[in-house]
Structures are given as structure tokens and as C-alpha cells.
């Protein structure tokens, strides 16, 4: 991870600018940014740990305990909501037995709500990892849940 983070240094005039890239590197490896990583990142970037924590905590994106093997965001913003996005989120939530923001007991899937994913032409939509689920409907909730589980197994 250190080498991956250091590779960003030449791209920026300050080391502080590597904060977000470093958080992303750690997050991609560990599916979270544990508190223990913060002083280490700070030392690499020659910053106070509080500076890293301040930036990290601003972005609700970075969690301190691991997300599931797949992190899925169901869009709840206006264009998706008009076509059943909130119902889809509720249906998936029921099907997977978790509230938005939680991870399934088997550690496979973290279900979240997303604010406009920019996939309004495919509403209602979901981003799971790098995969886009388009034009979903609550009738397909079993199928979507199964696809998410399969995706989790692939990424495990």
C-alpha cells in the first residue's frame, strides 16, 4: 500500500494533496480506513493525524470498519425516486435483512442509499462496486440480490 500511495507524490506539488488518493488506496485494500491507518498516512504525508482524520471524516464515504465484499448504492434522488428507487431500496433492504448503511451478516454486501449517481437515464439504478444495475424494479428484487451475492463471491 505504501508504494501505491508514494506513486501519487510526483503528481502533486504538496504531499497533503495525496490525502484522498491515500485514503482510496487503503479503502480499496481493506474496504475501510481503520483508525490505525491514520497516523501512518499522516507520517507519510508529513501531516498531523488530525488533518487526515478531518478530511476523512468529512467524506462519509470512508468507513472505519470493513464494508462488505460488494458495496451497493441504490439511488434515492429525484429521477430514480420518480421511477421507484426508494421502493427498490426498501425491497432490497428487506430481502438482504439490513438497513441502508449496514452489511449483511455473512459480510458479503453493504447496502447504502446513494444521492444521484448520474444514472438517471437508467432509473432506478444502483452502483455496486464498479457495476451498474439499470432500470430495476421491485419485482426483480430476488434476482438483483442474487446477482449482488454472486458479485460478492467473485470479488472475495
Amino acid at each position: 500500500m505504501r508504494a501505491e500511495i508514494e506513486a501519487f507524490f510526483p503528481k502533486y506539488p504538496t504531499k497533503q494533496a495525496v490525502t484522498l488518493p491515500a485514503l482510496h488506496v487503503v479503502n480499496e485494500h481493506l474496504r475501510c480506513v481503520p483508525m490505525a491507518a491514520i497516523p501512518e498516512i499522516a507520517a507519510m504525508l508529513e501531516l498531523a493525524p488530525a488533518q487526515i482524520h478531518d478530511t476523512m471524516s468529512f467524506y462519509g464515504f470512508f468507513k472505519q470498519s470493513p464494508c462488505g465484499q460488494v458495496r451497493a448504492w441504490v439511488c434515492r434522488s429525484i429521477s430514480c425516486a420518480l421511477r421507484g428507487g426508494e421502493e427498490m431500496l426498501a425491497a432490497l433492504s428487506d430481502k438482504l435483512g439490513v438497513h441502508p448503511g449496514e452489511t449483511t451478516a455473512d459480510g458479503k454486501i453493504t447496502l447504502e442509499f446513494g444521492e444521484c449517481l448520474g444514472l438517471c437515464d437508467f432509473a432506478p439504478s444502483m452502483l455496486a462496486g464498479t457495476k451498474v444495475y439499470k432500470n430495476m424494479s421491485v419485482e426483480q428484487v430476488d434476482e438483483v440480490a442474487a446477482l449482488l451475492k454472486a458479485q460478492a463471491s467473485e470479488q472475495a
Partner: protein
Amino acid sequence: MAEFEPILLANIHKPDSHTLPVYQAGGGYAAVKKVLAGMSPVDVVELVKASSLRGRGGAGFPCGLKWSFLPKDHPGPIYMCVNADESEPATFNNRILMELDPHQVLEGIIIGCYATRASTAYIYVRYEYPTAYQRLQRAIDECYAAGLLGKNIQGSPFSLDIYMHRGAAAYICGEETGLIESLEGKRAWPRIKPPFPAIEGAFRKPTVVNNIETMANVPHIVNRGADWFKSMGIPSTNPKDPGSYGPKLYCISGHVNKPGCYEMPMGITCRELIDRYGGGVWKGRQGKAAIPGGLSMGLLTEKEFDTLLDFAGPGKVGCLGLGTAAVTVMDETVSMIDFLHNACRFFAHESCGQCTPCREGTSWSERILTRMKHGKGRLKDLEILLSISGSIGIMPGTTICGLADGAAWPIKNAINKFREEFEDYIRRTNPTGYAQEDPAEALQLVELGAH
């Protein structure tokens, strides 16, 4: 009317449209070569100024004028930040450009950097666009390999590096100084202006921040000229109005038969966009309202669908502006209370928290709408909401950036344009309490299942 030949979307249906060979086969990078071979940076700025290209990100600021604000003879470095944090609800035109024609975007950026003497450009892409991120990175790699980026591009004295920078799911990073703070590794709190980024931007150096679609227009202006660009669109009507020229990507979503991103000259009406491109309102229903250009811009009623979607049009019917030209249509079954709840929840979630009026105003708006939605609304709430919407934002002078203005507009438009519906809903759902004026108790949202 002759069928409009797409300009910005001319390549997207070609197989492998995102690759360098396909882009070059269609004449790609001719504009970079033309600029490097025979135009000075000032020539390019003047050309773009003459074209009247206005920023496509939402504010519509004239692009060439923005470039001309950079200090002359600055020793450097000068930075360009390309805003690909597209997060305005209902907006996805930049995603289409980045995924399907990333080289067109890069060509515009290269020319923009040449014009502004920027030696480094950062493309700030929102996290939610992984395909755009990968394809732009791959396109950048192809450019380095082909001598279109790096040192002494095409044998000229001009050198440029372009780097991708990933966001982390925060709407506020689309605000240009929030973007700069985020790029620098800090929380994305917008800066007080002045100093404007052109004087003191990224890493305290002169910086120009441009939107993806704006940059995609630049190669075409270089290739075909300012007069060609100005042959499309809606001319300026007074000396203070820079006009609405050139091609535009309009997004249409919500209750239409064919949601999508469609290109046409600036200045189609909302109704024509819905009927001719969006395939009409779905399920044979009537339209009730539409967002004219991203959620922040407010609402058009069905009667206002003939509004021209140029930079000046939406403002004439009380909307905030053209914004991102992303239209979301609501059919006759949509409750304006549900719409406004959705809008307020978005802005409460995305307020960065720096300015108290925005942080508190957006979150109280959401809480009031949640209470109203669950049958505990009071008529007095409408006055409270209008009072909030009139007091948060740059316009009333209470916040640093425009997020709160964007939060205020859906409230103003929804309540002022659909007042009767709000009052009826409140009376109907809260028959015993609608007239109360004493402070309302907060609802336990978790128990209500609102979150």
C-alpha cells in the same frame, strides 16, 4: 427544420469510440495540431471569447472571459482543474462524454491549458463514475504514448501533464473552490471569494476551473470558428446578456418514455424536449411539473413547459437558471410534498456544514417536510419554509457558496407555484392540527421509517 447533426455526440455510437485510433480517424486532435502550429495562447483565448462559449457546469460564466482573468506574465505554475464531479441531481451529460468520447474532452483540456498557460491539469471525477475514470485514464495513457501529452507536445515548446483525481461522494466538490480544497487534501469547504481561483486557486496558484462539456466544445470552436459556433443558439438580447450559443447536451429523465441525453442547439423549449426527444410523458399521462436544469434550479409548472431552455429562459419564470440543462419530468400523479421532501433531503445530506444558515436551514427544511409528509404538517410550516428559503444562500448574503441558493429554489418554486396543493394536503392529513402555531415537536424519524 433540418435535422441537427450532432457535434459533441458525433462519435458516441462508433464502436470503441473511447479509443485514440477511433477518435483520430474522425479527425480528432486536428485542433490541438492547429493551435500548436499557428496560434498563440492569446489567439486561443480571443477565439473562445469571440465564440461566446459559456460554461456548461451550471453558472454559465463566459469561458474565454474566465481564461482572460488569469494574471499576465505569471511565472507559474498555473493549474487547470476540470470539474467532472457532476453530481447535480438529474445530470449525466458529462458522464456520457467521459465514457464514450474521452478524447474529445482531453483535446479541449489540452487546448484550454495551452490558452491559459497551465502546465498541469487535474480532472476531478466523482467516485460514482468508475467507467468514466477508467476510460479517461486510459485515454490519458494513450495520449502520453502518442506524444499528445507530456514534454514538448508534438515538438512544440508546450508541455502538459494531466492527472485524474477521484472524489469521495460529496456533492459540494462540484463547487469550484470546494473542489480545489478537496484536491488539496482538505475537507471540501468552499472558499470566500475574492480571491477568485484565477488569482489564487489550487495550491495558492492561479487556477482555471472548467466543466467537462465546456471543454468538449473547445476543439470544435478551434476547427470551425467562432462564427460557426454563434450560428447556433439564441442570440443575446441586451448588452448585459452574453447570449446562449452553440450545441448543448440536454438530459431528460423522470416520467418520460425515453430518458436520455440529447444534443441540439441551445434554446429548445422544455415541452419540445419532452415531446420530441423524451418520447412524451409516460403511461399516456399529463405532465405536472419539471425541473429545468438540475434539482437546484427549481420547478416549471406544466403551463411553463414552453419556457426556452437557454441561459435566460428559466429565470423568466422564477427558476434559478438553466443550471445543467437536465430536465426531470413529473407526471400528474406526483405529490409536490413528496417532490419537495426528496429535494430537501438531498440538500440537507449534501450541505457541507461550513455556513450555519445552510447547515441548519437545509436540515430543518428536511425535518419539516418529513413531518408534513407524515401527516403532521401545519399551515404555518409553509411560512417557515419560505422564510428559510429566502434567507439562505449567496443572494441573501448568508452563505459562502451557492449550494443553499440551490436548496432554496425548489422550496420557493414548489410552495409558490403549488401552494393550494400544499395547503390541501396539510388540511387533509392533519385535520385536527393544521392550524396550530405553537412550536411543533420533532418526529422520531427512525420510528416513522423515514430513514
